[in-house]
Structures are given as C-alpha cells and as structure tokens.
C-alpha cells in the first residue's frame, strides 16, 4: 500500500498536512503526538513585521464550522526563522510549507526571500486569500492583474516551489487558477475560508469584533470539492485540497476531486489528535475502497479517468 505523494519534488509520506493557522508553528502539538507522522506542516501565516492581529472576539461558533478573524497574528519573519522554525526542527524532521502573507508585493518578497534560504522549508504557500486584514492579500487573490504581477515577481527571485492559496470569495475560481498557472506558479492550495458573519441576539451586533471573518469547517467541504474539481479540469497545476476535512474518507474524496494532498484545518482545533487519527485510519479506508496507491486516485472522479 502506498501513501507517498510527490508535491513538486517534496516527498510526503502521506498527503496529510495541518493547515496554516490551525497548528501554530507546529512544535506545541508535539505534546499530543509524534509530528513526524505528518506528510508536512503548513506554518502560521508570516508577515515581514510582527502583527498582533485583530481585537477580540476573534472566534464565533457556527453550524458545521466556525468563523475566525485572528488577523494574521504572527511574530514576524525574523522571529519565525530565528526561533519558531528551529524549535519545530527539534521535533520534526521533514520539510515544511511556509505560509507567506503580506499587504504589498514588497511584503511578500521580503518573507518569501527569507523562507527561500531556509533549509527546513520545502514549499512556499503564498496566501493571497486572508479575509481578515484590511490589506491582507485578499486583494491579490481577487484581482487577476495583481495576482499575475505578484506571482511573476516572486518567480523571478524565488527558487523553491510556489503554491498559491486561493480564496473561494471570487466569482470564477478557474479563472484565478489559470492566472496562477500562466504566471508560473508551481501549485495551488484550494481553498481558504469563506467570508462569513454571526450576529449576537443579545447585543444585536456582530459577534466578531471585526464584524466578518473566515468561515471554515465541515460546511466548506462540498464547496472545496466543487472548486478543486473545476480547477483540476482546466488547469494542470498540482492542488493541495483544503476545506472541512475531518477523516480519512474526506481525504480520499478530495483526492478523487483532483487534490494531490490535503490540508486539515479546523478539525485540529476541535481535536488536537485529528491529523494523527486521519493518518492512522487512512490505510484501513484505502483497503475498504481497494485503493493500493493514493497516486492512482488523484482526479479519479473526472470523466475518462
């Protein structure tokens, strides 16, 4: 039975990757289980300068999911490379995915250049889809021109593979994926959170201080599956599927839609052991559906496959 996946020459023992923003810089989860079982880890979104993030409340519970408006709280690129990644390296031997955030091309460049020199990083995930910051990159994820210009600029100087994490808050995800492909991106992460809101009936005001936030959780899975399916039809870039994954069956479903690997997000917050349970159950579920090699099912739901 083979669960090994190749993402732009980064070999993952299995396709399970904790998603950015739900796993910190990883090392704190080593108190729950041995992190080396994970395919890779997508680090907390990093900006050039430290960011405190948004005022509280940042979290609201929803049906089949949650809203967060953390607002890219992170200690800044220097601390991430100088302190966070070294701490992670003590407990995790594989290469990680660095999530690069910013509000200008220069911001993205500054972080991406620093991560490009970092041996522990295998792939750069360009976050052009954070909905929680005034200039949090979602502008890049919603404009074909800005997105294309950003990727082209990064590709000129960055050697490591660039995966673009796209926002579902667009009218045509395929168009944005094709922009990424044409600008030279190496892969896609589909999808970031959907913009959402909850209103408190007692105060009659939005629960989240920022009013809106990113909706994540199992409610997103059908949307993510649809978007991955559509993009896989039109675009040849490898896709990391993300959105509402809770178990090994969901992993198979995402891969059938066209994902080469998956990111598990909100599930980590409900159950810190979520990724370890999925990895443990994956061989059993593969056997149940007579899957010998996960590579053979990527895109399997498409006609002619």
């Amino acid at each position: 039975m083979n669960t090994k996946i190749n993402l732009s020459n980064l070999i993952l023992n299995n396709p399970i990757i904790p998603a950015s923003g739900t796993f910190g810089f990883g090392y704190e989860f080593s108190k729950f289980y041995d992190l080396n079982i994970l395919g890779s880890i997508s680090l907390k979104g990093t900006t050039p300068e430290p960011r405190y993030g948004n005022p509280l409340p940042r979290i609201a519970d929803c049906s089949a999911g949650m809203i967060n408006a953390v607002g890219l709280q992170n200690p800044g690129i220097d601390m991430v490379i100088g302190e966070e990644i070294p701490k992670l390296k003590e407990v995790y031997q594989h290469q990680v995915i660095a999530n690069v955030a910013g509000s200008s091309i220069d911001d993205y460049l500054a972080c991406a250049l620093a991560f490009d020199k970092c041996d522990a990083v295998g792939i750069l995930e360009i976050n052009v889809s954070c909905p929680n910051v005034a200039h949090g990159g979602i502008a890049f994820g919603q404009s074909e021109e800005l997105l294309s210009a950003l990727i082209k600029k990064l590709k000129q100087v960055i050697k490591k593979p660039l995966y673009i994490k796209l926002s579902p808050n667009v009218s045509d995800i395929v168009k944005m994926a094709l922009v990424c492909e044409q600008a030279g991106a190496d892969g896609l992460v589909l999808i970031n959170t959907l913009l959402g809101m909850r209103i408190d009936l007692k105060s009659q005001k939005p629960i989240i201080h920022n009013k809106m936030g990113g909706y994540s959780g199992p409610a997103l899975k059908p949307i993510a599956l649809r978007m991955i399916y559509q993009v896989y039809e039109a675009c040849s870039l490898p896709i990391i599927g993300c959105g509402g994954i809770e178990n090994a069956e969901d992993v198979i479903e995402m891969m059938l839609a066209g994902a080469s690997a998956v990111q598990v997000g909100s599930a980590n917050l409900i159950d810190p052991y979520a990724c370890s349970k999925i990895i443990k159950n994956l061989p059993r579920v593969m056997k149940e559906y007579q899957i010998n090699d996960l590579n053979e099912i990527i895109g399997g739901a498409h006609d002619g496959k």
Partner: protein
Amino acid sequence: MLNQSNQKITCQQIRIISNERLAKDIYKMALASSLQALPGQFINIKIKDVYLRRPISISKIEKDYFEIIYKIVGKGTRILSTYQKDDYLDILLPLGNGFELVKNKQVLVIGGGIGIPPLLELIKQLSTNNKVTFLIGLNDIEEHIYQEYQPLVTTINKSVSFQGNVIDYLNNHHLEYDYAYACGPMPMLKALQNYLKVEGQISIEERMGCGFGACVGCTCQTKQHQYKRICVDGPVFRIGELDLDEY
C-alpha cells in the same frame, strides 16, 4: 509566568455522575474522573450539535470526580444542560495554567456572577494556610448558590442588605487583606485591577477556538505589549500584568 500544570492534556470520554439545576440557568455537573488539576484550570467539552468545544472552569476537584458549574448563555450550554446521568462527554483536559497558591496571607477572594465557580476549589485549597475572606457580587440573591463557602454578598438589585457591585462594597467596608484573587466579568476585573493595591491574581474568560493554544483566537496583551494566549498562558494572570483597557 504563573503555575503551569505538568499534567498532560488528554481527550477523554467521561461519565456524567449528575447534572442538576442550582438556580435559574445555572447548573452543576459532576464528572467521574480522577483529575489531577490545579484550581483555576478549565476543561473543553464537545457538545452534540455545536461545532466548537465549550470551555468551562473546574469548580471542585475530589479524588474520583470533579465538578463544573455553568450558566446557560447560548446554544452550547443549553444543550449541555440536557445531558443526563450516565451520559458520556468528550472532554479535553486539564487546560490553562492555574492559580498559584500563597501561604500565610490574609487573602481576599472576589468573584462576580459566573466568575465565582472557578474560585471555589481555590478557596478550599487556600483555607489550609491562609485567612480567607470571600466576597461575591451577584445580580440577585436568587443566584446565591454558594452558602457552604459563607461569602460576603453584594447584589446589584435590592435583594440583600448591601446594594452595589464589589467595588462599591469594598469602598463601604473595611476588609483586611494583603493578597487578592478575582474572577468575574471584564468590567469588574478592569475596575479591580485599578482599585486593588495589593498583589494578586485574576482569571479571565474569553471566547476560544481550541483552548490549547493553536488558533490564537483568544490573544491578549501585557502592559509591555507581549502577546498572551488566554487559554495557555492564562486564564490566570497577575494583577496588573495585562492591559485590560483594550477590552
């Protein structure tokens, strides 16, 4: 940094021994687990039909069970109140730091509303080595379910002899103390942080995503602008440590 429990966080299926209504919207649940925890720590409960776990403080720790006291404030706690004896709950525990116990002090412990339950185990453990005065602020005497701890009581309405909040009470009574602990609504903690002239500790409450530090959904700041996660660096902080004005 206050007390950090060395107890490993685990996810357990725990049997409910009892789940009883104590007052309007206030319930006490006893859970069958020999929990090694510090006063001030909390648990995070998976409740059917809601997505996020609900963080609730531990109010009593005994040899083979522990208790929580919770208030129905929304859908999650409403559903929690419908669980029956011998049902099982999926609980992540123990979480957060805990209160650091002082010795040989005249301690004032101040609780407000549903911030009182996390102080109950603290009072029990402080009483062996300190002289403890317990002051609670309630909206109405009907919420008074803490008789066995013999607190001084002030209420916002006219249901007891003294009417007002805990600050009003302190302004009108001479209490001897050289150390303080407090838990309650944020306006009370803000006021106490400015009012109290002694050392002490406060425990704060916030909406949480995970309860164990991963989502940074409950970040606050110290006066030196260091970031603290209420769920792992707290919920207990030293009086004066946090910048509460941003709340």
